[in-house]
């Protein structure tokens, strides 16, 4: 462990609760998804399963900068955001299994997690689709006269969708309270940012719309908190959207079957050296925010949470197939074509 120094001590910008939340939430995201990866190998989880490991700060740092009434929307790499927002890990794990007790009763699966109670408005499987929706969610807040906003995460690949650019322009035009976040993990499946555009500084895209836009170290949870807090202030003042590019990295493959020939081992290791979880842990210990014993307690708690989540998922019942007809319409006697 690095030596304590007064120099690092003075760097502590946030409360003990905040640091504790960051450590605990990111650890939960990490351990939950490591477990999900294992269970995928055992075919307990099927379909696509996109892990967020390495990117945890992008969710955790934003959560502490926003309020419980703010709205969230993201793409299919969507287990971590609700975990941080407080969704029951058991319900998410059950969803990955396809159980009736899952976040959407086994309807959406890994790519389509929702939790209305925590204002987590999805998990969306079509690249870029959540961006105009995020705009609309923010639009509704302004329309209703609240001070709430929408934070809308997207990948670096999603930035190439036309709908994203239409949404950016509309958001500036209507001064919509939305924070657009690009989780730039360097790749869209096997395509690096470099191979998909001449504009590699993704945040500069905002400039074409006069949108305040910033690049942020996506491995540093404090920087993320700070950037989101500033963007939120702008949004709540009525100044409209901000574009934030979080420069981050996914340690695992795109989904579960990705040979990863498009990148080097060294590159992955380099980013692991800047691991968001390790960074915050170091800050915590260097500055005596928590003791090693207290961290160990958190580790134990998280381990138990993940074990309980798996147990819950395992023991939960499968849905009744006929319930597939439920939730298609709100109209209760909708006349489905039955033959």
């Amino acid at each position, binding site marked *: 462990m690095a030596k304590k120094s007064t120099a690092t001590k003075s760097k502590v910008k946030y409360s003990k609760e905040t640091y504790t939340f960051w450590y605990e939430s990111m650890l939960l995201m990490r351990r939950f998804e490591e477990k999900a990866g294992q269970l995928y190998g055992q075919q307990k989880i099927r379909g696509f399963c996109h892990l967020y490991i390495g990117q945890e700060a992008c969710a955790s740092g934003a959560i502490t900068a926003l309020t419980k009434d703010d709205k969230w929307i993201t793409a299919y790499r969507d287990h971590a955001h609700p975990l941080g927002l407080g969704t029951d890990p058991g319900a998410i794990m059950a969803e990955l299994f*396809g159980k009736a007790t*899952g976040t959407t009763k086994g309807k959406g699966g890994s790519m389509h997690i929702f939790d209305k109670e925590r204002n987590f408005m999805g998990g969306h499987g079509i690249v870029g689709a959540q961006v105009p929706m995020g705009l609309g969610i923010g639009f509704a807040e302004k329309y209703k006269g609240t001070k709430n906003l929408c934070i809308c995460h997207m990948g670096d690949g999603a930035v190439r969708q036309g709908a994203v650019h239409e949404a950016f322009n509309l958001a500036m035009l209507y001064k919509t309270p939305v924070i657009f976040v690009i989780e730039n993990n360097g790749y869209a499946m096997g395509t690096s940012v470099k191979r998909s555009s001449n504009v590699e500084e993704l945040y500069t895209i905002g400039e074409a719309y006069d949108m305040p836009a910033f690049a942020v170290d996506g491995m540093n949870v404090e920087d993320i908190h700070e950037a989101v807090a500033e963007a939120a202030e702008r949004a709540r003042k009525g100044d409209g959207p901000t574009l934030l590019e979080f420069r981050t990295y996914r340690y695992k493959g795109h989904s579960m079957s990705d040979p990863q020939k498009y990148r080097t081992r060294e590159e992955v290791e380099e980013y692991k050296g800047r691991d968001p979880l390790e960074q915050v842990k170091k800050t915590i210990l260097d500055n005596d925010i928590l003791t090693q014993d207290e961290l160990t307690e958190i580790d134990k708690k998280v381990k138990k949470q993940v074990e309980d989540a798996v147990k819950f998922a395992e023991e939960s019942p499968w849905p009744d197939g006929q319930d597939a007809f439920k939730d298609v319409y709100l109209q209760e006697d909708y006349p489905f074509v039955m033959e």
Partner: protein
Amino acid sequence: MRVIQFREAIREAMNEEMRRDENVFLMGEEVAEYNGAYKVSQGMLDEFGPNRVYDTPIAELGFAGLGVGAGMNGLRPIIEFMTFNFSLVAIDQIINSSAKMLAMSGGQYSVPIVFRGPTGSAGQLGATHSSNFENWFANTPGLKVVVPSTPYDAKGLLKASIRDNDPVIFMESEMMYNDKGEVPEGEYLLPIGVADIKRKGKDVTIISFGKAMKIALEAAEELAKDGIEAEVIDLRTVRPIDYATCLESVKKTNRCVVVEEANPLAAISSELTYHIQRNAFDYLDAPVIRVNSMDIPLSFSAPYIEATLPNVKRTLEAVKQVMYKK
């Protein structure tokens, strides 16, 4: 005869046509350096180079439109969608631009393009990744829609699609890429718009296409055990539809079941049923029955999928019903 995978058959068709005509090029997400999300285009970048095989950003509307413009201006694009579920982002260019171009320009501009990729369900992927679009595109005049079920048909029909001067939607399935089948070494083309009788029979006609053909053939196998000889027709193309082959068979068997993965309202099955009652009414001994997905989105969990998709059991029940067997 030589046996190859479905994906290899498609690759061979593209390779042969690209060797034959330098105006043919392939474009899509992950088709070049990654060798295709489902390894269909494996090795094509190596053989043809980056001027013929293009990786795109995730920008379906843009690259589908690029294909249409390039087609209007003398090239013969093959545009791959990772799945047709993602073609919805690009559907304006497919329908408003490619399908209507020839008519709208009074015959001046044609669009010799192939839009290809998987359609339909592919396991537990949830509703956004599981729709069937065969009937959507078949509804559009100006398009041709090819949905093969075997490697042999896929190769011959894809070659014909690439040479066709009109826009063609060519639909595959993630769940068929590993399928193996006999494909001869030499070159051959198959005509678009001609159905194929995959199994001869006299008692009942089962019409299907694409991935659902497996259900139809398996059901026929089961029925044979009970002494029922089903004739199984593979449409292979759902626009145009080979009504003649279907009608001829129904006039012989007097009974018909249609098996299709799409949702039921305004499906290919509805269309076939109309033509059969219109043109073979006097030959029918029972109403035509169809087996489609249920009238709902395809949800993620296995029990929902089981309750939604067409299957052998439902097909057997339908056949028993048209044969008035218990």
